[in-house]
């Protein structure tokens, strides 16, 4: 299945809720609203054979915290990316770990690093940050290593 065909099908089914951009035959980017994530993911799981959960990228954007779910499809070069942006002071997104267990770890990691909360995550405790790590989010834009070290009482130089 190539990206353009899939993009047309998605637009037919979901209309404006899913705005698709096919960058090439093998890369499809779909921008969604947070509440549009489950329906589109369910549809994809039903209609695209060999779809599996690859990984997610979280990043701090101007308009909010962006969570990109990358879904490769077995036996084809296609990678579908679902883009969800959560508005900032309190970013929340529905958790995909409810639907695919593979998303569980990466969502915990994203919570640790960027501070986005996944609603309904089965085990929402820390994965990559130690228990003692202060409540800052290293991947946020305002994070500064020197300042961080000062705060926890370490010298900035070794």
């Amino acid at each position, binding site marked *: 299945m190539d990206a353009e065909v899939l993009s047309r099908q998605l637009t037919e089914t979901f209309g404006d809720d899913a705005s698709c951009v096919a960058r090439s035959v093998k890369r499809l980017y779909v921008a969604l609203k947070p509440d549009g994530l489950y329906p589109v993911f369910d549809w994809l799981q039903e209609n695209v054979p060999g779809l599996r959960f690859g990984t997610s990228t979280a990043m701090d954007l101007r308009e909010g915290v962006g969570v990109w779910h990358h879904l490769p499809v077995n036996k084809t070069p296609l990678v579908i990316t679902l883009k969800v942006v959560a508005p900032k002071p309190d970013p929340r997104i529905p958790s995909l770990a409810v639907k695919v267990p593979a998303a569980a770890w990466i969502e915990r990691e994203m919570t640790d690093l960027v501070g986005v909360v996944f609603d309904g995550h089965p085990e929402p405790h820390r994965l990559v940050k*130690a228990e*003692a*790590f202060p409540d800052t989010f*290293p991947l946020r834009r305002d*994070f500064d*290593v020197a300042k*961080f*070290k000062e705060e926890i009482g*370490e010298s900035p130089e*070794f």
Partner: protein
Amino acid sequence: MAASTPFLVRALKKSPWVFHVGTSGCNNCDIEIADCLTPRFDVERFGIKLVGSPRHADVMLISGPVSRACKEPLQQAWLEMPEPRAAVMVGSCACSMGAYRDAYSVAGPPDKVLKEVDPDAKYIYVPGCPPKPETIVMGVVKLLGAL
């Protein structure tokens, strides 16, 4: 260093038992250390033996920068080693933090971390990313010569 008599040092040099701690390096150094044990290099013929517990060891091989979570276990393992004891910093990371210098989650290079709990810790640096197994063996041998 109450317990380290000349006799013990001499005994150590005959057959140093080494214990390996990988503190969040990229594990290439760890593989090269394991390589030293395999038939090509086979350090056991010199009496150097890799052991599974710090309590049995004379020399500690440390690879990688020390992440915050590894800091305490590393210090604890060092204090568990009987005296006389010494460490070999394997790889650029353990010597100078290498590629991870600016990372936020590392607590410092292992020499500084060891100095915090044991100011007379003895160690030697083996730079390289990763150092070849020959170099690591050479490092251990030089360390024994210097004790």
